[in-house]
């Protein structure tokens, strides 16, 4: 089974980190497809829930580390919303670990690749969301 992961990456850190992974040729599985947003604070719980509703196996949100947000505090909102969405997922019986929030800086290409690898392995282990 190949998991399908939808990722929302902020332009300044997460996306830049993914770029650096590319420039550094860090290999990771092609399970992940990236949607670029300007700030992780733009990510709405509904984006995440719709992804699951439509059949995504995992959703990844990446933003700047705390205190590094390009927009001062957007990542704090992202943190709050992802936490909230995890609770909602749990309440309706979806494993909240299918949703992951990671702070990935523009210098953390290796971390990004590792995150994708680990997340993919985890999703492979727990199997698809919709069978």
């Amino acid at each position, binding site marked *: 089974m190949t998991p399908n992961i939808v990722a929302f990456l902020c332009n300044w850190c997460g996306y830049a980190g993914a770029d650096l992974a590319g420039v550094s040729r860090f290999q990771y599985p092609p399970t992940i497809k990236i949607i670029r947003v300007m700030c992780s604070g733009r990510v709405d*719980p*509904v984006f995440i*829930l719709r992804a699951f*509703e439509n059949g995504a196996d995992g959703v990844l949100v990446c933003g700047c580390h705390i205190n590094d947000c390009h927009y001062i505090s957007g990542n704090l909102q992202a943190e709050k919303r992802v936490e*909230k969405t995890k609770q909602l997922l*749990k*309440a*309706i*019986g979806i494993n909240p670990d299918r949703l992951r929030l990671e702070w990935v800086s523009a210098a953390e290409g290796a971390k990004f690749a590792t995150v994708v690898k680990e997340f993919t392995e985890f999703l492979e282990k727990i199997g698809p969301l919709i069978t």
Partner: protein
Amino acid sequence: MNVLKLSPEELIKYCYQCGRCTGICPLGEISFYSPRILIHNALMGKPVDPQRLAQCSTCDLCSSKCPMDVMISEFVREERHKLRQSGMILEEAHFGIFSTLARLMAKKTWKANLNDYFPKEIQFSDTSEILIFTGCMSLFETYFEYKYTNIAKSAVKILNHLKIKPQILKEQVCCGHDLFWGGDYENFRLLGEQNIELIERNGVELVITICPECYRTFKLDYPRYVRNYNFKVISFSEFLDLELKEGTLIFPYEIPRTITYQDPCRLGRQLGVYDAPRNVLKAIPGIKLKEMERSREDAICCGVSAWMNCNLYSKAIRMDRLLEAQQIADTLITNCPHCLIHFNCLKNEYAETEKKYTLEILDFKEFIAKALLLG
């Protein structure tokens, strides 16, 4: 209640365009919304304006005044269903998160889980014949960041106080009310089947609902649109009223407050439960229960159901209603989580200078729990 006898399509044929519905509709006063015209257009075979369909709060104030007993809300829902069948989706507030969650629950590929939701001191029994159905309360609490609702926990605390350890189905799903009223019958049925099957399987005799929407759905809509079932359903207010009459529910503490009660459209007009909550509230020593001019059958609703049509018009209705309550009471008791959320949203909205609304808005269950000092 004619609603059970005839289909909405048949019912509207009785309409003779008298206009009582539009005249009484709180939206009619401030907008061009007209139930009468909607029906007329439908009867003429003209397309129904989707925006107007979304605008109706399905509160049934109109139907309660209709001399021909046309159930306008039912008609509106049917029309929404048709729209949906044609591929059109009506916008919902909160970016449609609650119907998305409901649809996710309708997929039977996983089981819902309420394990960590209730605090440890709350007691349940897996073998109880009484079940408390908590609906989407945990979702609301999470989404609204525990700002408004502590309803389910209060309700169970009250039951425990009455020495009742109810069953709770940790795998319960949304009753489907909002999907149903948004016209999504397919997913509504999926949810209904899950709930009925689950409740029957667990040997339940009595289901106590804490949300009027669940109550209506179980009572009226499951039998018609899903299937009949072998358990009884009662609202929390009615249940407490019975306990009061039996003498098991006693309020030992004095609560000096002037309150007024907001009749939820589902519980009041649609199911006729007016006295039960009032009886319970009046039994609390020190309580002065004042009635708003428009109450019981004439009650004005919070303006929104099924998360549709939250806009300036429904806000105008809410503003009006909240001021009405504020003129006579210091506390507004609601009995539907939706009323509670919507009125509190208005109360807490941005205000540069002083807050316009000073009254406290509390849910019936929470208020009773407080009156019993259950925290």
